[in-house]
């Protein structure tokens, strides 16, 4: 929440300085701040916030849809089952 408030304050400041033309950018900051509310803790990267708003990252998802399964249990994750013995149709290993 602290991050969101900071983002909103920054958005207001930008709007005041830049005027109407900056509204889109300020909204981007607010959206980015909102998106960061649920972000996981940083892993220690040198990520001091430079105040940038990146509208390209305010969207979620991969941009493609592979379709939800009828076996989706509503958790948002696929339900896996054991494949038993025999061979598979593909291998997932390190790549």
């Amino acid at each position, binding site marked *: 929440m602290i991050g969101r408030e900071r983002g909103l304050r920054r958005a207001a400041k930008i709007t005041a300085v830049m005027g109407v033309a900056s509204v889109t950018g300020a909204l*981007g900051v607010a959206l980015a701040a909102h998106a960061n509310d649920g972000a996981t803790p940083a892993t220690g990267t040198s990520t001091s916030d430079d105040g940038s708003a*990146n509208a390209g990252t305010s969207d979620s998802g991969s941009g493609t849809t*592979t379709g939800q399964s009828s076996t989706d249990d509503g958790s948002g*994750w696929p339900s896996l089952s054991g494949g038993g013995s025999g*061979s598979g149709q*593909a291998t997932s290993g390190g790549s």
Partner: protein
Amino acid sequence: MPLLERLPVGDDCAQWMVWGTVARLVVTEPAALPEATAIVRSEVANIDEACSRFRPDSELARVASAAGRPMRVSGLLAALIGAALRAARDTGGGVTPTVGAALATLGYDRDFALLPARRPAAGLAIYPAPDWRRVRLDGDLLTVPAGVELDLGATAKATAADRCAATVADRCGVGVLVSLGGDIATAGPAPEGGWRVLVRDRPGDPECLVTLPAGGALATSSTVSRGWRNADEALHHIIDPQTGRSARPFWRTVSVAAFDCVRANTLSTAAVVRGQRAVSWLRDLGAPARLVAADGSVNRLNGWPPAGGA
């Protein structure tokens, strides 16, 4: 060594080498295989042309030559960079596209298949990866600060798998599995019983066979594949942005299932970077995951089945 796909190739399957690894395509209707193969080959070629770090004629190379100036990019490159930036956002910077310079410095400066087994010592100067938030993407307008080199390796293959699977299912009207070096996406109806995937890094490693439902995706990240040596140091391709070096190999492999491959691969890669802390992180997210520690012990989370004796 990258993944070597050793499964049989039937009349419902095509397989070829790409990006130093194996592309494998499986469809539920063998008659659709030629068209599906053409779709996947074309999409992969387009993505390579857009974002290869090793091609001087790629669109990404032109971005690098812009030296910090904003540049209009194709919709495809914008989608690829957007996916990479979302991965960075979702992992708090743990998986970032700004590791290009770090990878090149460590010796991964050409297609992996062309890397010599041992690179000469280079008097390495290693720095943390630049902050991903310095990269701006507004629609198709991209700004990469001068000195920041992008590498989309952490997400481009998974993005390609997602796009290929979705396109094949849409155009051919069949169920499809696309595996690009083990980054697996599916779309359309699954075969009876689901998509069966062998999860294993190298021969002799712990393995298991799992069944993915229709639309499921699975990715595995490894600290033992795509490895090389620089002087006396063992290196691999997953960079810890905090150090600019290969992530500490607490895990041999991490596999994650999700409903799109980018999500699965983002989490598996971030888990490698996070090391031991990855277990509680993935558990809290709810992602089905399998983590194989350096000593071979296996952690299964969130419903990952204890199949295949692994």
